[in-house]
């Protein structure tokens, strides 16, 4: 049960949890449209979401479109 940070907040995820798992929990879909994910500051390609596991101390950013100029 690694401790990670998701969008700046601490979270505990099951061992073996992937990015896709995280997204499913957060949005209902393992590959939501209009979403990007950074793991420790680096983009994780959409294709790699199902296979990218989360480890202790990982910083995950899950981003989507907001109004902007």
């Amino acid at each position, binding site marked *: 049960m690694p401790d990670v940070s998701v969008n700046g907040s601490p979270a505990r995820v099951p061992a073996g949890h992937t990015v896709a798992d995280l997204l499913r929990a957060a949005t209902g879909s393992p590959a939501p449209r*209009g979403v990007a*994910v950074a793991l420790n500051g680096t983009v*994780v390609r959409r294709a790699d979401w199902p296979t990218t596991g989360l480890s202790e101390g990982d910083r995950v*950013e899950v*981003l*989507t479109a907001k*109004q*902007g*100029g």
Partner: protein
Amino acid sequence: MWQLAGQQLGSRLILGTGGAGSPQALERAIVASGTELVTVALRRIDAGGPGGLLDVIERCGVRVLPNTAGCYTATEAVKLAHLAREAFETGWVKLEVIGDERTLLPDAVELLAATEQLVADGFTVLPYTNDDPVLARRLADAGAAAVMPAGAPIGSGLGITNPHHIRLIRQSVEVPVVLDAGIGTASDAALAMELGCDAVLLASAVTRAADPAGMAEAMRYAVAAGRLAYESGRIPKRFYALASTVDEGRPEL
């Protein structure tokens, strides 16, 4: 019709989505503006999921141009651009690298560095720049697909504070020039086009107006008016009058 990075666009107005009071107001403004391209930011997802902004945009049938608003270094901006490419499946990016939080004007050095990197990474880079003609040329030389000079600070509504520099920029680069930031009202947008800009990008002027949809329509006409005027060869300025009615044939009464 004009071309931006190989894409045909009918409207010369690019609309920023920031500042709108509601998705409904935004949607009405997008429709009224006639735009084909709108900017969006990338921010942390809310509890409820991706939210409806992309739905609004999809309903309007317009393209998405992600920005890197809020970045103060090339490194940050480059990372955010890569994330945007992943999220929106587009290699286009409105590149913002801010140098000062009061003016939100770009940092020339960081902006150029980020442009070079993103061009190397295969992006279509549309940098939000200041009105310096030399920097504009260096951005174009670095491979920017357009240059997007500020007319005045973002959201200030001051219009085009230095029309001379916008003219100089127009002469300094081959790529499209998009007047970005500072527009307050319709005549500002028309002036931008008359100075030779290829398009205008604005957000606050529409989204924060008392009637966003009305102002969006105003901007649609203003951009069309300014472009037509630019192409139609305006009369020269004269110190004295030149009668429009001929004197010949005037009766003796």
